[in-house]
């Protein structure tokens, strides 16, 4: 490893109204190094990235590239200096092709002044192929799956020959195979001397791919050390002062009667003869790779998508559910995969979101009883320990974990009996994850049933009583808790 870091940040501080987001933080990333940045939400990770990328300006401290001090004031300057970031919210132009996205702002021209499209698409195809990303460069971004979009965004940084690439939760949307491809790309970046900053809540990834790790807590630098000198539980204790072992350690309660039975659910080529049941007090896991139909199963039950055939029984009673409102009336609550776009009205208050699905219960002749509305919100906020100064706070201002709690509160207000959690902990920090798990445990203790979808094996294995494994729209196996093993589940999910 070279002796001089490519990026060196010293004594960086940043003050926001009311919070010291960063307090004299140091960070050094060497060429060819993959450097992990870990910490709970609010620890200051995203603030650091935004300072590197020129979105925010530092209050104190110095940043240098190759020993030369820099002052980046916007993303375009950062781009010119070879700094790139792959965010969860992707920054590709959705209606343009992959090739157009790669060459945006620097299209090669033919002699007559027209764009040399052949060159664009050939070059793009070369870059993609070199990274094992199998996709036609002429496709538009909207035609790609979210996981593929992310691959393309990463490939773009390679194309632009960035010298420092920041990955912010890159695996949140990816299946295990795709994670392998991603890690392959990162290794190639590393081999060509690119510096990588890697942020993830999935700590085991850090041990697979990173060289060094920096732990942040409450805006302070806690420690930087080589990953080979540490382990997951030590990292977690640096981050929060809790140990890993009790992460998924929830109580499993005795199961009651059957609450939900699904028979032969079919929807085009997406769902094929899906059958399973869920009992009261049970956590039924749904596992499968991206595109296996996990989310589609629950959307079909919930009445969010139309189905071709199939029967749903609740408490033994046959029900036809054609609209979410019917599912809600029957006691089903859905926490959707994408909480920002499907789960919450972000520009509305906590008070509004919590009561959103159950105004009938707190109104007279369609007039909302404002006092009851506020009482219910206040109670829910207290019960679920939502961290907020007031129930009139906009939901968009809350952290991911607290947003998820608001959605749970919404369904508790509907007196739901069956809670469907679709990827409940994506992009949520360790502490909040544990709280969500505790809430799931509480729900089952009260005799509610839970369907848990997760693409993250340790999570679904740690929590579920049984797991239905999906492969290309069919549920070929339902595995009992005693038989859980990563290998079996992955094999079933891959159709083996």
């Amino acid at each position, binding site marked *: 490893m070279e002796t001089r870091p490519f990026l060196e940040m010293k004594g960086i501080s940043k003050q926001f109204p009311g919070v010291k987001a960063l307090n004299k933080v140091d960070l050094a990333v060497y060429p060819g190094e993959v450097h992990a940045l870990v910490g709970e939400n609010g620890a200051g990770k995203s603030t650091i990235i935004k300072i590197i990328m020129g979105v925010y300006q530092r209050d104190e401290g110095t940043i240098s590239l190759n020993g030369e001090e820099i002052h980046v004031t916007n993303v375009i300057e950062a781009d010119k200096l070879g700094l790139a970031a792959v965010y969860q919210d992707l920054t590709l132009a959705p209606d343009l092709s992959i090739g157009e996205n790669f060459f945006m702002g620097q299209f090669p021209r033919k002699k007559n002044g027209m764009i040399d499209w052949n060159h664009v698409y050939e070059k793009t195809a070369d870059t993609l192929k070199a990274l094992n990303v199998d996709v036609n460069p002429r496709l538009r971004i909207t035609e790609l799956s979210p996981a593929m979009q992310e691959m393309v965004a990463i490939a773009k940084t390679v194309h632009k020959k960035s010298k420092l690439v920041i990955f912010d939760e890159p695996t949140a949307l990816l299946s295990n195979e795709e994670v392998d491809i991603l890690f392959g790309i990162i290794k190639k970046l590393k081999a060509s001397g690119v510096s990588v900053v890697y942020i993830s809540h999935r700590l085991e990834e850090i041990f697979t791919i990173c060289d060094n790790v920096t732990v942040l807590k409450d805006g302070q630098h806690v420690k930087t050390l080589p990953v080979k000198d540490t382990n997951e539980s030590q990292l977690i204790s640096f981050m929060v002062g809790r140990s890993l072992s009790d992460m998924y350690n929830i109580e499993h309660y005795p199961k009651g009667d059957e609450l939900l039975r699904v028979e032969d659910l079919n929807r085009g080529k997406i769902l094929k003869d899906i059958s399973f049941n869920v009992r009261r007090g049970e956590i039924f896991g749904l596992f499968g790779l991206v595109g296996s139909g996990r989310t589609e199963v629950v959307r079909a039950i919930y009445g969010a998508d139309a189905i071709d055939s199939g029967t749903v029984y609740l408490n033994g009673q046959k029900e036809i559910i054609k609209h*979410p409102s019917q599912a809600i009336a029957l006691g089903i609550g*859905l926490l959707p995969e994408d909480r920002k776009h*499907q789960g919450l009205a972000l520009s509305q208050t906590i008070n509004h979101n919590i009561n959103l699905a159950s105004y009938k219960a707190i109104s007279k002749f*369609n007039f909302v009883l404002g006092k009851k509305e506020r009482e219910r919100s206040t109670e829910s906020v207290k019960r679920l320990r939502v961290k907020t100064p007031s129930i009139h706070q906009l939901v968009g201002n809350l952290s991911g974990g607290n947003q998820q709690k608001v959605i749970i509160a919404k369904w508790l207000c509907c007196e739901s009996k069956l809670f469907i959690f679709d990827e409940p902990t994506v992009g949520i920090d360790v502490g909040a994850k544990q709280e969500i798990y505790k809430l799931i445990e509480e729900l089952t203790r009260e005799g509610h049933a839970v369907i848990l979808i997760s693409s993250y094996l340790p999570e679904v294995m740690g929590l579920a009583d049984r797991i239905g494994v999906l492969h290309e729209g069919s549920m070929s196996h339902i595995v009992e808790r005693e038989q859980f093993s990563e290998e079996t589940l992955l094999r079933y999910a891959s159709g083996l």
Partner: protein
Amino acid sequence: MKLFSKKNKLRLAEGNLLVIVIILMVILSFATKNFFTVNNLRNLVRQTSVNGIIALGMTFVIISGGIDLSVGSIVGVASIVIAKLLVGGMPIFPAIIIALVVCGALGAVNGFIIQYGKVPPFIATLGMMQAARGIVMLLSNARMIAGLPKAFTGFAQLVFAGFPSLFFVWFLVIIVTFILTTKTIFGRNIFAYGSNIEAARLSGINTAAVTLSVYTLSGILSGLAGILMTSRLGNGIPTAGQGYEMDAIASAVVGGASLSGGSGTIIGTVLGALLISLIQNGGNLLGINAFILQIIVGVLIVASVWYDQIRKTTKS
């Protein structure tokens, strides 16, 4: 002060607007001889009422994340329909009901096209704006319809307790729409729908019903405004309401409604409508060139949204 109590807090934008409106009124009272006269104030209120009522309907549409460009043409429809019916000898009350039903139906057509045809609101209502104006021209042969009964044309001239009758109609609409937006499930649902339609649907809200009702409501209120305007002008006028969609949108936006949906208030829109009328009325009295006033209103619209954006970004 009750208005500023925690429960019913005026938003910052509304508070600022109220202050601006009051300051402007005080300045105009001193700067011109004619502003603070009974006649001028009554005229101001009559003028503002018509735009104010349309703008309230528009506020519902904008909160839902949509836009209604057809309101001006629907004002024209109302004017011609009621004039034809009255000249044809129909009693006033049923004629009003029929005109309102026709305008509500046109609004419902907007909603239907937007909901089931997945046509963007801008396009759907742009089409309706053209088509409805065409209907007006056909029905009236593009001619004014005169000879309306005195009982009808007299209404707009009536004064109760010092206030012109149109003010009371506007006030009634303000009260009803205020209650609808702040106190009812319907109101809560429109905000949720405008903020995130998919989250609203997955929370069991009947989104089709929301789309249909906001555009129908906008049609009915435009119809009501058209009827009042016809009473005030004394004739059925085929060009009535031309360009009113812009005043209505401007009032809502200056009042703090966001075109991206999910925000907007009745009080804000009322103040927005007042401010725009005040600038026009005061400007006229001060002898400012009408074209300059137009520039001022244009700047005001952009500046108020700009200011709002600055406030939002500095907050977050």
